[in-house]
């Protein structure tokens, strides 16, 4: 009944291999030109070549920097505001309507304003990442914090935990499963958005490499950039899985 949770995570490689095979098959099938879908081999060789070049690596570094700074700020904001909204009336009265109003606004459309206010550099791109990634984290936190079993909070209050510390000491850990789900979504959104921002006004970063390649129809370089971001996604997924297992080790769903 309870399926053995001992399934090697390695089988996750299978669909990836299938996709790569489909790619290669398609590239060789003649249905697409080499330019629309270059062969896997060419892309991989080019990727290795690029990864050896310090200039390319510095672009990767810049993108990573923006990604992490943006995500981290979004995390702090999202969890902080989410907790405030879930745990205090004033917080709810202020945060919930603001979130309802600001949340659905497409932030990309605000990017020109960010540029005007913050310039072309890191800060406007980071701001866009924050604006997009904070929202899912906030909603997940709100949901998680609101569904904390009230007796957990009661126990803590009765143990003399000051109200000010209830949030960090009970609500936060109890809402952790939901928060981590929000983080996963926020992280993916951060990846997409940092790229998007770098593509819109591009001076550096992986997104810039992508745009340059795409504008001059260097499909191989385009795919190199796309694969780089995919690999980034894989690495982040692995780290997140680790974090999850650590934070949720006591929760029944993580057995």
């Amino acid at each position, binding site marked *: 009944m309870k399926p053995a949770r001992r399934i090697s995570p390695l089988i996750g490689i299978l669909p990836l291999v299938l996709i790569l095979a489909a790619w290669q098959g398609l590239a060789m099938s003649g249905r697409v*030109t080499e330019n629309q879908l270059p062969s896997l081999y060419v892309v991989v060789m080019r990727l290795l070549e690029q990864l050896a070049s310090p200039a390319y690596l510095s672009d990767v570094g810049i993108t990573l920097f923006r990604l992490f700074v943006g995500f981290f700020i979004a995390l702090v904001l999202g969890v902080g505001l989410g907790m405030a909204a879930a745990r205090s009336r004033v917080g709810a009265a202020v945060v919930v309507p603001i979130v309802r109003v600001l949340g659905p606004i497409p932030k990309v459309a605000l990017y020109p304003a960010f540029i005007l206010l913050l310039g*072309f550099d890191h800060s406007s791109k980071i701001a866009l990442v924050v604006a997009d990634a904070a929202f899912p984290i906030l909603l997940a936190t709100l949901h998680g914090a609101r569904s904390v079993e009230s007796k957990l909070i009661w126990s803590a209050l009765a143990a003399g935990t000051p109200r000010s510390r209830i949030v960090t000491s009970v609500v936060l850990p109890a809402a952790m499963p939901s928060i981590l789900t929000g983080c996963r979504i926020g992280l993916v959104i951060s990846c997409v958005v940092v790229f998007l921002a770098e593509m819109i006004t591009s*001076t550096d970063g992986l997104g810039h490499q992508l745009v340059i390649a795409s504008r001059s129809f260097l499909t191989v370089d385009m795919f190199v950039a796309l694969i780089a971001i995919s690999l980034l996604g894989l690495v982040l997924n692995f780290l997140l899985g680790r974090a999850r297992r650590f934070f949720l080790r006591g929760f029944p769903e993580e057995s």
Partner: protein
Amino acid sequence: QQVIRVGWLIPAEEAKYWMMKRPAEFPQLGSKYKIEWVQFQGTSPVMQAFAAKAVDCGTQTPLSVGQGLIEAKVQTSIIAQHVFETPTSFSVYWAVKDDSPIKSVKDLKGKRIGVSVLGAGVYAPLVQMLEKNGLDPKTDVKMIETGFAPSEDAIRSGRVDAGVLNQPFAARAEAKGGLRKLFSVADQQPNFVHILEACRKDFVDQNPELVKAYIRDLTSAMGKVLANRPETLKVVSEVTKAPVSVLDTYLLKGNDFARDPGMAPNFPAIQSLLDSFTQAGLMSQKVDVASFRNGDIHAPIK
């Protein structure tokens, strides 16, 4: 009834805007053939759409047809020319603030220069202008992508030391004052061709009559653009949603790009541009303009 899928852009394709908004003026359009309009953001997506055979004709620039041929192996035929520069017309230029210490191109050393898009067409004359003045475009200056629209503000707020101005933003900036022209594209590359109309070569080969009909209407549309400025202002305003009062400051005036009533592609000028792109490193090899010329299937066709 045959259909052409046409990619279009804003802001400077008045002939196409006429065809979109005043189709009744073009008897063949709608009776002999139909147009499916698809708007794009930039000419390289149009080229990618060519590659994917998602559109048949559309807006191009000399640079993107060249790159498309070399890198994407997409063969295109240039059928018409929308706007370009002449010695008397507007020319895209780089401006600095009035009180800027930058007096000449040489003073740009170590400065931040705004460009619309890195590697765009007007990037080539900039690079060549810098090189001519002994500056290495890679190391001596820092190029920043600003796009055309936010460029004026980037200059005024000091985020770039010199920025690029195009219409209609140049007219607006000039009206406001405070900026000074440093050099223009024409100073380096006279007779710059900005916007072309091109079709996939295979499409032209298969549907020569259809394309000819399209060219015929384009040509007649350009006639109307030039003949009836008040109506053109209205048409452009309907498409771009820019108020007529704003358009009135430059559109089809002395400070606008040049337009040819016959929309004839200036193949020699395009060739010279292609050469300069190759020289500036924007294109990886030399390209002969003849590869974009499909017999006599190009404007003007009356």
